[in-house]
């Protein structure tokens, strides 16, 4: 079968829709994650989503995986959100919980005696296993997350990039950090089921980090992050169909290439600005 034939299959279409929704969410939340310096806490949240999903798989079976991942991710995201901004303490607490979650997840998986594809899906992604019901749930959750994000985006950006003045201007900095933690937890839980715990970062961090290299406009950065995430996910799915390999390596590689190109462009931009400044000063 050619790639085009494959694309007309139901499960592939479901996978694509799921990927598109996930990429929109990741692309929009990504710049805030990067702005708040939360890359490590995203990774930690993903590992706890993995533990939650694996635990649910063990106890309740395959139907409960999504809920398990969601509960694990949101709980730990709330905890990370409450940690405050002291980088060093935050890093160590995240490290402690991340490794514990990973260990727990591995234990649950070893005890699980069902199909091994169910096991590894949570770590490396199982997008082709997404069915119509999953897609509907995903789309619904996506719309809710987007709606909340649209409402809080501006004060959230203010609180993330300029916390002192934001607090003085009456922005509920603490409450927003909890709201964002929930949004992030939900997104990570969805991501874990699609691209897997190990690669959630490549959708939540890489596109936003790439966008930050080439633009200083917050709006354009969000738009670019969404576009980059979409290219990585859709490109990854199509390429994996063609090659008959798992999608994660393709998603990760495409995102990485985008990042490298943006870095190169960013370096050029900086140099040009520096040259201009020298000319103006001279």
């Amino acid at each position: 079968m050619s790639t085009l034939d494959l694309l007309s299959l139901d499960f592939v279409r479901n996978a694509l829709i799921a990927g598109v929704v996930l990429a929109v969410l990741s692309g929009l939340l990504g710049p805030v994650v990067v702005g708040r310096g939360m890359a490590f806490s995203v990774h930690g949240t993903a590992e706890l989503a993995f533990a939650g999903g694996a635990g649910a798989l063990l106890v309740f079976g395959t139907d409960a995986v999504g809920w398990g991942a969601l509960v694990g991710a949101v709980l730990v995201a709330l905890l990370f959100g409450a940690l405050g901004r002291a980088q060093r303490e935050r890093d160590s607490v995240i490290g402690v919980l991340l490794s514990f979650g990973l260990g727990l997840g591995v234990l649950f998986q070893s005890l699980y005696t069902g199909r091994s594809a169910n096991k590894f899906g949570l770590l490396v992604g199982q997008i082709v296993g997404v069915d119509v019901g999953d897609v509907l749930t995903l789309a619904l959750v996506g719309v809710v997350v987007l709606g909340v994000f649209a409402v809080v985006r501006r004060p959230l950006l203010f609180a993330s990039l300029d916390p002192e003045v934001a607090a003085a201007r009456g922005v509920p900095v603490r409450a927003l950090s909890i709201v964002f933690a929930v949004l992030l937890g939900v997104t990570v839980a969805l991501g874990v089921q699609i691209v897997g715990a190990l690669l959630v970062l490549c959708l939540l961090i890489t596109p936003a980090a790439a966008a930050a290299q080439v633009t200083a406009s917050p709006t354009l950065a969000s738009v670019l992050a969404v576009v980059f995430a979409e290219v990585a996910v859709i490109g990854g799915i199509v390429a994996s169909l063609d090659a008959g390999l798992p999608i994660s390596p393709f998603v990760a590689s495409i995102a990485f290439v985008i990042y490298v190109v943006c870095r190169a462009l960013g370096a050029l931009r900086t140099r040009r600005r520096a040259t201009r400044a020298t000319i103006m000063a001279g």
Partner: protein
Amino acid sequence: MSSTPSLRLSGAEVRRGGRTLWTGLDLDVAPGEFVTVLGPNGSGKTTLLSVLLGLLPLAAGTCEVGGRAPRRGNATVGYVPQHTNVDPLTPLRERDLVGLGLDGHRFGPALRGRAERARKVREALLQVDALDLADAPVGALSGGEQQRLRIAQALVGDPGLLLADEPLHSLDLARQRTVVDLLERRRREHGTAVVLVTHELNPVLPVTDRVLYLVDGQFRIGTPDEVMTSETLSELYRTEVDVVRVRDRIVVVGAEDRLVHTGGGP
């Protein structure tokens, strides 16, 4: 000019962590007045700003800002926070940061009033002579440029009271003068009262109307000539302090060594 003081403290007392920082503070600041707050670390200078911003309640006494109790998000108060470095890769331009000062606290997408918003942001940038930097990433700016930008951000809401926390910190003399000129122009042209916290009186001495000097729970308020004397500062620091006038500068000798001991930590 209106008769309502821009800010009024009476019998104000502040406690933090079980310790009384200062008590019995009475201070009226008139519109257009420039008050410089001095004192060693830990004497409660920044805490005073927190009270005026409505972030910290008084333990006793009353406080009014523009005739009303201080409250978070008061649009008539502009705030220039202590300088912090902005990561060069933060996707944020000058005009974005200034714009956040205008409406960053509002929820929901900004759909209407974009032209008006852009005009106010331009005006604020113009006031600090930074219009040419409007599209520059905040993280790529020098310390002096960032400080000017912070002032634009504080001025964009057209405040009647401007609170500035160490706005001259780590700036060279020329840039210090630029920032002081901006503040001076603002209070002269718009009658904005300025309360400025600093370790260094000299850069703001020419524009300072009154000094609030806080040391270890004690304080003095008055014109620089009244407060900055050997006698007054020796009383405040409870040790021999010499105040020497060298041309248009005031040099305080003997207080520096006490900083650590009176400070009680940050």
